[in-house]
């Protein structure tokens, strides 16, 4: 996957993680572990991907009450909101069967494509993806 470019400086940023819905939810709750990881990645001039379906699900699961906080995340220079590639729809459908939900399928696909891990509260959701070794767990 081509690295995204900073929306401010035009300098390339290296993708380091994909946030799934649980990580986006943790962000809204002020998770220190998630914050530390994104802050470190930002300091390294890196980037995290937030799949659009994960953002939508996080907004829904918080009853649309955390939209301002999610907006802060989405607006940051180190966060890239990405949609699925329509050409991958069959693979995404298969992944949906493996991970249980469409938002997790998007997170898994984008992580595989970018050759990084999915930051998640529960790695067992992704146990059937690439030998179960495509996640980084957080626990706060």
């Amino acid at each position, binding site marked *: 996957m081509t690295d995204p470019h900073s*929306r*401010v400086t035009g300098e390339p940023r290296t993708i*380091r*993680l994909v946030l799934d819905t649980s990580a986006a939810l943790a962000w809204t709750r*002020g998770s*220190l*572990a998630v*914050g*530390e*990881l*994104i*802050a*470190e*990645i*930002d*300091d*390294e001039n890196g980037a995290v991907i937030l799949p659009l379906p994960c953002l939508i699900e996080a907004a829904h699961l918080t009853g649309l009450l955390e939209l301002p*906080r999610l907006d*802060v995340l989405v*607006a*940051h*220079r*180190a966060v890239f909101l990405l949609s699925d590639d329509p050409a*991958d729809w*069959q*693979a995404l*459908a*298969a*992944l949906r069967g*493996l991970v249980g939900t469409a938002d997790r399928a998007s997170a898994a696909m984008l992580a*595989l*494509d970018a*050759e990084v*891990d999915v930051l998640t509260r529960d790695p067992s959701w992704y146990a059937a*993806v*690439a*030998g179960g*070794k*495509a996640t*980084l767990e957080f626990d706060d």
Partner: protein
Amino acid sequence: MEQETSQQRSMTEVLADLGITITDEGKARARARLQEADARRDHAERAAFLARIRSRPTAA
């Protein structure tokens, strides 16, 4: 004078505005976790899985 937007500010500063203090120790912890994840990543296995699921989704 230009106003500095949240997009231009570091994540550490943005989090501080939200009441979350990110310390150097916390960043070092995060850096170590990222490096460990990089080291254990099996790129060949992932590439094979991705190729399989893209070419024959039902067999992945």
